[in-house]
Structure formats: structure tokens, C-alpha cells
């Protein structure tokens, strides 16, 4: 294996120096200048020289055709030079008084008159020695990070070389400034240059990036809820939340490639538009082809980038405590043990399947629900409910638990809390299935999750479901409408007043009793804490909303 580093092609490019000069000029003028500098700093000359730096490869972390990651040791003592031009204020009294309030200014008559002097500074004989971490990929360009302070020495020659005091001062100031530049600005400049060289189409995207990240859809943890609570309803402190960032750690960068995400979103888009051609993704088994179930094409879009992201997180088995309103909800429920086991999985499942009907639209509401607290969730809830009602009933039979938010909770919940959370999860009927569920979008196994599993579980659940919580009851009209043509067990499972199940009278009486009990509890709860329940009463809680 051999590496061939070319120093000259950079310099051979005619426009390279001009671009580099422009970039340096903008970088130097970006930060507010001290009052002593009264004009823009202009880079007039810039030359990388002919002597290449010495590179020593210390470690190569990743190597492929289109990407590279390695650590280098670089030594440079070449003949590169840089010339800057600006104008400085030579009157110390002027600069001293310019930033001070005029009320206490001594108001000198002419002693503070300005004398601006053009200043030319040449930096040469730059000696560098640094450990460099270099990451290159065709999509993302070149990223360079210095592990240590790279600047060993340099020579500053200026207009004021004859005055020793000024020369020393300039030397000191510029060295410190240049250290900052090397550590902070240079990586950004190199990154931009590399983007221009290798993937010019990325530049526009690069500019769009801040907008995209500020959009609510991309990172649900970018702006955590104001008063976040964990699974048990305890308040989380903000530092803990900041650790939860989805794309913060380096492992997150490695887990999913941008290309795959792009393809997935491409595929999603191709489904919501009338595009005839679906881009193919390698090594992916699409459930519509694999499973015997009636998977319609609308199921595939669930593999949105967001989902892919979260599932890859589950693969990495990291411990995340997800803290949005739904987990808060669950926490509050789990604090009341009598209600915990009452959750009907069928309700959750039927609702969850219903939500696949309109993926494009769902995506938005789901995203909002994820990030927002209960209030915003409540606002968006009616819209999604509407969508569910219109959803085709056939999809109700798709028992595959690919409902994204559920997966999100599963994966984001800490494994330690598994016991509690598995109880709480209404859409997780049996524990063995949950690993499959979390891998649903990526692994072909997910396609083979038998709906029979659920049916087997159903007899048990029907009893449980008859004791649904008051929320499930509220949902049940919609659920029943959605699950209309499903199997008999399913029909029995949906326990709304609309359902025409031929249950035993005894059972019905029991239901009535339980309903009364629940209503009483609700009433009490409401009485105790009216604000808490008010939000939940008129609209479905966010957890349910997401589960659909």
C-alpha cells in the first residue's frame, strides 16, 4: 500500500490562490475588529510555497475508495508566505477614547485627532508541527482537526520593523491570533475548499444545512422540552438532556452514512409523489416483497431517515433516556399500578397500523409530537386523528409493529428501565418481540414478524383490553372504525361502545364496573390536579397519538 501526496496540483490550479485569498479575507474580517484597525484586513498575497510538509502516518482508522480517516504528524518549515494589508489608527488616545462613554470623556480638543497609517504585514518562515486528524469522504469533503497547537514559530515583518516596540508587539499579537486561526478558522476554510473541489453540489446544501437542522423534523433532541422528565416523572436537569443529542457523538456519524439516508428519503419521496421509478437500495429487503401479509406499498415509507437513525441507535445498544411528553405520560401511569396492566395492545396496534395510511402527512405530525410537550401535541393531535379515520381499514391487519414512535421509545428507553417500560408499552404485547420490532426497518426479519403472534397473544389481551384505560376508551371509536374488517379476535379486542362484540354478559358487566371505576378515578384525579387532566381530556394523549 502506498500513498501519493501531491503538493503541486493545489498550486497549479490558477483560481486556487484567488479563492483562498477571498476565503482568508472574509475569515479575517468576520470577527469584530479592535478599534485600532480602522479598515478591512485584505489578504494581498498568499503562497503555499514549493516545499511540501513532512507527513508521518501514525494511524489509519478507516480506508475505502471514497473515505479516509487517519492521524498524521505534520512538520512544516517551508517557504509559504502571507501578506496582509490594512490601516491602523496610530493615535493611542483616539483608540483609547473611541470605545468609552462620551459623558466621562475628557473631550480633548485636538489631542485625539486621528492618524491612520497603512500597514502591511508579511508572515513568512512559518514552522509548524502538529498532530492532525484527517477525515475525508467524498460526500462530506475534507475535515482537518489539530490535536495540538500547530504553530511553532513564524516571522512577522511589517511596515514598522524599524520600531522595535511595535515590531515585538505585532509579533506577539499575530502569533496568538494565528494560533486561534489555525485551531478554529483553518479547518473550516479547508473544509469549504475541499467541498468546492470534490462536491460542488454540496456547497449549496451546506448553506441550507442550518435551515434544515433548525427545522423541527431533523433532530428531536435539538431543542429539548423545557421541563423534561424521565420515565418515572422526575425532572431531568438540562445537562443530562444535552447529552442526548442524536448526531453529537462520533459513533453517531459512523452508524449511518449520509448516502443511505439520502436513498431512504428518496424512496419515501418517490412514494408520496407520482414518480414511477423507485430508487433501489442495496441489501435491503422490502417488506412488500417478502412477507405473505397484505403489506401495501405505503408501509415502506416508514423507513424514513429518522427511523433508520433511531434503529441504528438501538443496534449500538446505547443507553438513552427519552424524555418527551409520552414518557412522562407513561411515568405517570406506571405510578398507578392498577392501571398499568390494563393497557390493551390491540388498541395500540390497530391504531398504530392506522397511521401508516398517509405516511407523508403523518411524518410531519409525528415529528411535531415527538418534540413538543403535551400542549403542542394536543394541538396537532386532531389533525392526525382525522387522518386515521380516513385510513383504509385493510391496513389494520398489518400487525407488524413498525409504528415509528413506538420504536423510538423502545430504543431510546434505557435497558435498565426495560422492565418498567415493557409494562407500560401498550403496543408491546410480549417481550420477545420487541427486539424484532426495533430492527424492523432494516432487517428482513421484520417483514416476517407474524401477525399470528399477536393473535396468539390476543386471547390474553382481550381480557386486558377490556380493562382499557380511559384513554384507550376514548380512542376506541376511531380504533373500531379502523379495524372493521379485521378478524373476529380483533373485533373483540376493540372494546368501544361501537364494537358489536358478542361478549358474555358477565364480561360486559365487568367492563361496566371497570369503566365506572376508571371514571371515578379519573374524576378524582381531575379533582386533585385539574390542570394536568384538562390537557388530556379533550384530545388524545400524545403517546396514543404517536402510537397510531
Amino acid at each position: 500500500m502506498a500513498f501519493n501526496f501531491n503538493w503541486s496540483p493545489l498550486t497549479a490550479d490558477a483560481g486556487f490562490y484567488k479563492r483562498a485569498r477571498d476565503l482568508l479575507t472574509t475569515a479575517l474580517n468576520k470577527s469584530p475588529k479592535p478599534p485600532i484597525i480602522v479598515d478591512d484586513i485584505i489578504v494581498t498575497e498568499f503562497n503555499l510555497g514549493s516545499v511540501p510538509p513532512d507527513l508521518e502516518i501514525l494511524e489509519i482508522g478507516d480506508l475505502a475508495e471514497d473515505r479516509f480517516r487517519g492521524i498524521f504528524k505534520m512538520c512544516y518549515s517551508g517557504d509559504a508566505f502571507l501578506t496582509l494589508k490594512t490601516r491602523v489608527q496610530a493615535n493611542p488616545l483616539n483608540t483609547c477614547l473611541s470605545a468609552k462613554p462620551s459623558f466621562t470623556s475628557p473631550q480633548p480638543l485636538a489631542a485625539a485627532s486621528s492618524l491612520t497609517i497603512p500597514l502591511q504585514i508579511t508572515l513568512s518562515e512559518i514552522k509548524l508541527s502538529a498532530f492532525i486528524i484527517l477525515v475525508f469522504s467524498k460526500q462530506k469533503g475534507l475535515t482537518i482537526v489539530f490535536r495540538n497547537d500547530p504553530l511553532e514559530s513564524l516571522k512577522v515583518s511589517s511596515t514598522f520593523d524599524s520600531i522595535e516596540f511595535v515590531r515585538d508587539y505585532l509579533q506577539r499579537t499575530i502569533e496568538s491570533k494565528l494560533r486561534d486561526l489555525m485551531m478554529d478558522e483553518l479547518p473550516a476554510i479547508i473544509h469549504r475548499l475541499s467541498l468546492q473541489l470534490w462536491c460542488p453540489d454540496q456547497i449549496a446544501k451546506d448553506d441550507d444545512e442550518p435551515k434544515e437542522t433548525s427545522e423541527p423534523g431533523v433532530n428531536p433532541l435539538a431543542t429539548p422540552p423545557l421541563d423534561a422528565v424521565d420515565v418515572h416523572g422526575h425532572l431531568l436537569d438540562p445537562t443530562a438532556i444535552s447529552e442526548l443529542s442524536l448526531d453529537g457523538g462520533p459513533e453517531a456519524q459512523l452508524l449511518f452514512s449520509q448516502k443511505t439516508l439520502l436513498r431512504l428519503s428518496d424512496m419515501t419521496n418517490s412514494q408520496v409523489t407520482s414518480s414511477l421509478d423507485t430508487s433501489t437500495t442495496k441489501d435491503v429487503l422490502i417488506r412488500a416483497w417478502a412477507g405473505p401479509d397484505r403489506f401495501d406499498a405505503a408501509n415502506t415509507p416508514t423507513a424514513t431517515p429518522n427511523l433508520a437513525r433511531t434503529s441504528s441507535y438501538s443496534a449500538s445498544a446505547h443507553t438513552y433516556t427519552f424524555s418527551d411528553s409520552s414518557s412522562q405520560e407513561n411515568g405517570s401511569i406506571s405510578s398507578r399500578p392498577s392501571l398499568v396492566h390494563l393497557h390493551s395492545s390491540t388498541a395500540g396496534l390497530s391504531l398504530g397500523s392506522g397511521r401508516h395510511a398517509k405516511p407523508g402527512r403523518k411524518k410531519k405530525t409525528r415529528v411535531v409530537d415527538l418534540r413538543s410537550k403535551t400542549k403542542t401535541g394536543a394541538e396537532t393531535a386532531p389533525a392526525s386523528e382525522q387522518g386515521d379515520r380516513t385510513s383504509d381499514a385493510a391496513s389494520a391487519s398489518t400487525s407488524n409493529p413498525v409504528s415509528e414512535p413506538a420504536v423510538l421509545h423502545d430504543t431510546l428507553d434505557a435497558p435498565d428501565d426495560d422492565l418498567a417500560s415493557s409494562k407500560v408499552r401498550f403496543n408491546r404485547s410480549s417481550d420477545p418481540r420487541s427486539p424484532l420490532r426495533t430492527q424492523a426497518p432494516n432487517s428482513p426479519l421484520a417483514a416476517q414478524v407474524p401477525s399470528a403472534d399477536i393473535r396468539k397473544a390476543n386471547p390474553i389481551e382481550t381480557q386486558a383490553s377490556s380493562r382499557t384505560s380511559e384513554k384507550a376508551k376514548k380512542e376506541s371509536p376511531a380504533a373500531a372504525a379502523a379495524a372493521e374488517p379485521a378478524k373476529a379476535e380483533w373485533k373483540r379486542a376493540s372494546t368501544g361502545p361501537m364494537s358489536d362484540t358478542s361478549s358474555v354478559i358477565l364480561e360486559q358487566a365487568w367492563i361496566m364496573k371497570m369503566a365506572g371505576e376508571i371514571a371515578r378515578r379519573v374524576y378524582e384525579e381531575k379533582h386533585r390536579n385539574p390542570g394536568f387532566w384538562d390537557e388530556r381530556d379533550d384530545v388524545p394523549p400524545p403517546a396514543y397519538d404517536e402510537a397510531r
Partner: protein
Amino acid sequence: MREFMQYITNAFYGATGWNDDNTYKDLNATAKGLIDFPLPRGLRLNLSALATPHFATSYQLGTVGVVDGSISYLHSTIPLTNIAAQSDQIPLSALLRSYRRLHGLGSRDGQWCWEAEDTASAGATQTAAPTISPSATSAGSTLLYGRLYLPQSLLEALVVRRLTPELQVQLSAVSERSLRNGGTILGLLQYDRGKYGIEGLFSTDGGLLGFRGLYNFGGDTSPSTSGSPAGPASSEPSGNGQSSEKERIYGRFSAGGEVYYGTLNKSGGMSLGGRFATLPAHRGTPLTATLTINPLMGNINATYAVLAKDYCALATRMEFNVYSYESEWAVGMELWSNRRPAGFLLGADPRNLEVIPEPEAPRVKERSFQAKLEWRLDDEEPEPSPPSPPENHEEYRGVLKARMDQNLRVGLLWEGRAKSLIFSLGTGIDLRKLDEPFRSLGLEIQYSS
């Protein structure tokens, strides 16, 4: 427009008999006022009041995108009874006029000066007694001033105290969080002997020490024409003796310098300057010329201001730096108008034709009638007529100020009185960028009671 508190502070100086012109700092105040007048930005409202003769308040509310404001209070130990604080009575020239006529030197070196000033002030204002008796007892008079800018929570404080009739100390302080050490204090010790005035200052900002002084010679100060200062004060008696003097340009020379040294940041600065200004006794066109030199920075600054007519003042300024060969020029103009502001804006007919004859003609007739009735007041009545020129000054309802510099940046300011509001409407225009020439626009309205 001078702010109300500035006006009150000047009134305090007037009441204590302090000549605030006699400092090197204000050597070229005339040209600076004519050229570097501040342009209002955004909308600004001032509500001020001289609640008691000792106490004044001022509230300011402004908006330049964001709303801000300030609250200020002023307390004076001596009563400020002889000034008009109501905004419909404040003489506009006191607030708006930039051309400064030299006062008679309020020098305390000779007793005769007291008397001369005494008679002069007695003629001008009826409050001669409070002016003079405090000047003897003004030794202990103090002015306290505080101002709080609200959103920034910036606090300004000023203490002025007369220690002796010649010695005055000023302490000004600013407190703000963003400043280093939370604020700065400037101490100023002023010593005015009339013939010369010196100041020493100390600022906590950089440990700045400063010294500046001004020396007057020629004109009324020179002993050879010691009779003349008494003459100009009351021009009538010495009219024949001064005729030859008045044909010549009659004025006063002043020369001074300043030195600063920052003890903490080891920086310094200095400048030298000179001024020639005609005295009020001069019958010709009043003019002021200054020249300042900064030998360290090679800066030469020359200004020339002239009061061409009573309603028109012009000023020019040239600046040149012998080291960097940079040069600057600027011209400024002040044009007083006695039309009503609305009439001026609408281009209505000038009112001066009607206004001026009205007060003068009837008065003369009345006097003549009265004289006829009372037999003997013919000769003595014309004495009050000299106050009529000040009344003519009061006829001015507005002033248009304009300036232009070498970058073709034009500043226009229209100030005046509408009803009992004093307004100031200004704009900055950049003639280099004609596609969007207006750089700033502002309106300031002041009401005081």
C-alpha cells in the same frame, strides 16, 4: 438642539457667574456647533420640567427599532429663577444657536470688572441682583445631576461645585456593566482667572491625567485698551472714542494647549491651539477663526466661522495631516427663519413682512402718543428700544442647519418651535449613493414646563 438639562446646567453657570467659554476644550465650539451638529435618529420625546427653582426633571422616550428612554433629575443649591423653562418661552437661540458670541471676560482679577458686568447684566436681564450676590456667595453652590438610561441600565452622574469664585470642580461618572471595572469617573478641576483659564483632569479610565490651559490677550484684555471693555458694555457713552477701534476688527486672541498622559496604558497626546474671535463690541461682521495643531500626530485643523447676518452663520473646516497626507473639509450653515414651521414647509408667504412692522410701528406710535400725553418721556423712552432687537431674535421660529463634508455626506436639520413644542427634524443624506441616499432620519420633540 441642546438638551433641556444642558440648558439648565448652562443656566446654573450663568447664575453662578461662571464663564464656561473660557476653557481650551471649547476653543472651536462655534465651528463644531455649526458643522458637527448631532442629527436625531428615530423618534424621541422629551418631557422636562423645572419643578422648583432648585429642581428639574426630564424624561426621555425614544425609539430606534427598540424603545429606550432615560430619566434624569437635577438639583441646584442656588435658585434658577431667572430662566424661562417653559418650552413656549425658552429663547430659541439659547437652545439652537450655534454661533457663540464671546462674553465679556468674567474675570475676577479686578473689582472694576464686577461693576462693569454688573451694569451690563443689569441692562440685559432684570435679575442682576441674584447674579451678583451669588457670585460672592456662589462659593458653595452645587449642582447635582443624575440620569438613568433604562434598558441598558446605564447611570450617569454629575456633580459641579464651586469651591471659590475662581475654582470649580466637576465630577462626572458613568456606571455600566459592560465597562471595565463597571464604570469610569472623570474629575475636572477648573480655575478661571478671566485672563487665563486652566484645567486639570483625572480619569479612572486608563489613569488618564490631563492638563489644559487657555490664555487670552488682545482686545478687551490688553491693558492699553482697558477703557474699552467698559465701552463695549455700554456702547453709547464711548461711541466717539471707539469709532476708530470699531472700524478695525476688534477682537480677542486666545491661545492654549493640552497635554494628556495615561498612567496605566502609557499613552499620551497633546495639542496646541489658537483662536481669534471678535467681541460683541465689534460693529462689523462677527467672525471666529481657530487653528489647532497636534504636533505628535501631525494634524492641522483650521476653522473659520462667520455670522454673516443675524439670521445666517457659516463655517468651514479644513483638516490636514502632514504625516499621512490625509485631508478633510467640511462646511456648515445655519439659517434662521421667522416663518412659521408649517408655512415654511408649505412654502407659504413669508410672515416677516407682517410681523416685523407690527411690533415696531405701533410701539413707536404709542410711545409718541404717550410722550405727547406725558410731556416728558420722549427722550427717555428710546432706552427700552434696545431690548427690541432681542425681541426680534425671538421672532425667529425656526432654524435650518446644513452641513456637507468631503465624502459628500449631507446633514440637514430643521429645528423650531411649533405651538409650545420644540422640534428637531433631521436627516443624513449620502450623495455618493444616490440610489438610497437617506442614511438616517429622526424627529425629536421637546416639551418643558
